[in-house]
């Protein structure tokens, strides 16, 4: 068991290191010159002072060879130093730390709504015997995946903030300001959850062990609760990492639409100002969140699925 844990932890660390490397390679080593991008943004007017270029190069270590740059950045990152923002000069780690809590609240609520809503929809769609109801319910997830998040946000704002002022349109104040962004974010997530679960539950309903259970005299409700749900939820757990990653990515659009502060807004402003150190830091943090969630799922999985425990002995 310790071997398994160790194996998974090392694997997760390797993926994270590779993700950092890939992001670094894209942002610093592509043919475009980071300094001219930075200067484009920071200085006004077209004139670029060569001395200023050199100073900047030295400051960001860009006068060194690519390997030294990479190793330096990696070393600093491992110590928790993600560099400084070009636009504001503030430390990147501090910017991200300040932005994360707001987004974490939003993400948690959105994920909760998505799992509850998506799970309920999938359960109802596979449990019902009415083909019409099933058809209607199963038509919803593709719709949820297809509608653009920014558009849903704007329509919700229009109806529930402007026409009927039930929720505040902008800002980070209070639970009420969290509702519309969370619902907006939950729609594509919930649709994904519903699609995966409905697929898994549909397969479970067609499995012969369900026929066995029905032949025991179990009702459909009992079969759904005792056999179908557990068999369908287990494989769907591996989706959690992707969902959390999508929440972070989705926050870029949603926080922009609802003018909230947070992780996504930081991404949006960093990309707009082409603030490369900040973008690198954000990408690495997002990858880290994904990797950690996946690691937790991997570690929990053998405890939940009896087929993965050792000792398949048929004497």
């Amino acid at each position, binding site marked *: 068991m310790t071997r398994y844990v160790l194996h998974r932890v090392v694997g997760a660390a390797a993926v*994270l290191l590779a993700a950092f490397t890939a992001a670094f390679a894209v942002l610093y080593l592509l043919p475009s010159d980071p300094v001219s991008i930075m200067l484009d943004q920071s200085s006004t007017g077209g004139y670029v002072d060569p001395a200023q270029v050199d100073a900047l190069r030295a400051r960001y270590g860009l006068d060194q060879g690519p390997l030294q740059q990479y190793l330096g950045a990696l070393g600093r990152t491992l110590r928790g130093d993600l560099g400084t923002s070009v636009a504001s000069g503030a430390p990147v780690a501090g910017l991200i730390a300040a932005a994360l809590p707001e987004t974490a609240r939003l993400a948690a609520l959105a994920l909760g709504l998505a799992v509850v809503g998506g799970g309920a929809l999938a359960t109802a769609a596979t449990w019902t015997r009415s083909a019409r109801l099933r058809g209607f319910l199963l038509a919803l997830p593709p719709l949820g995946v297809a509608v653009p998040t920014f558009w849903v946000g704007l329509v919700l704002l229009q109806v529930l903030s402007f026409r009927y002022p039930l929720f505040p349109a902008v800002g980070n104040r209070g639970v009420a300001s969290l509702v519309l962004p969370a619902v907006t974010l939950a729609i594509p997530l919930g649709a994904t959850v519903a699609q995966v679960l409905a697929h898994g539950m549909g397969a479970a309903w067609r499995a012969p062990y369900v026929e066995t259970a029905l032949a025991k005299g179990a009702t459909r409700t009992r079969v759904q609760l005792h056999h179908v749900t557990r068999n369908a939820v287990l494989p769907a757990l591996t989706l959690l990492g992707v969902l959390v990653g999508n929440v972070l990515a989705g926050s870029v659009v949603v926080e922009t639409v609802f003018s909230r502060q947070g992780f996504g807004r930081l991404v949006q402003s960093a*990309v707009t100002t*082409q603030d490369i150190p900040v973008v690198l830091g954000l*990408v690495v943090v997002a*990858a880290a969140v994904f*990797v950690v969630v996946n690691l937790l799922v991997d570690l929990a999985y053998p405890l939940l699925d009896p087929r993965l425990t050792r000792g398949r002995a048929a004497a």
Partner: protein
Amino acid sequence: MTLIGTARPDRTAVRPAAPVRDAAPATTRASRVRRALPARLRHHPLTRPGALLALAVVVVVLAWALVPGAFTSHDPITGVPADALAPPGAAHWFGTDHLGRDLFARTVHGTALSVRAALVAVAVAAAAGSAVGAVAGFVGGRVDDVLMRGADVLLAIPNLLLSLAVVTVLGFGTLEVALAVGIASVATFARLMRGEVLRVRRATYVEAAHLAGAGRASVVVRHVLPNSAGPVLALTTVELGGVVLAVSALSFLGYGATPPTPEWGSLVAEGRNYLATAWWYSTLPGAVIAVVVLAAGRLGRAVGRPGRTAR
């Protein structure tokens, strides 16, 4: 050879001579229409009403992209200030914007840019991803390990963030956005293609071909690639919808076309400031995006689930 839709694969229900492949209850009218079709077509999922509607949507949108002038006589760039923020009506189907420009015309004229970006993105992703996946599947061993670990890493970064990082470096513009979105989807295609190649390579008929004396290259060309292509094609269609969404999201965030050039995402963004006064401004162009993505997804599922003659 799967039994789609049957609650339980019942051998009695499926006679070899007259296979009942799809047990999903069809509406009577639809089944009557399909019964009039030749047998080979009748069972193809593309002939379902939903898929036909989706196909129609995609055809119309492609026509908008190719000949926008045929669908609207309004100028998408210069407006009539007197008509500013007019609600939808006979004169302006989608209403007008704050400069009095016809929103339907802007949507139709913006199609070319958005569709082109989506096609570039999906082409980049499908071509690069399939190539990587095919190499990984065929060569196997260490090459496979390295390529697939690389794909894992790309999948560890959420797609939107990955394309944002690429856009940061490439700069802003429709082509840059398209490339960024395409690069972010490479890993998905690589995974699928590799899985398909491995699946087909292990198939009994491939072994039979080897035993028949067919050479390696001939087996790859005649058996493996054609039989792997179906699912990849289906994913391409499904991804087309996802890519339209991603491209419009990036353009909504302001990294796409520069004003006043119309583009789907930026049209929705322009309407943000008029939410309280002009509901149609953001809503109708956004609805067009939703319908197109929905249609692409529906079409993709139809392509990915061939009838009994196709597989």
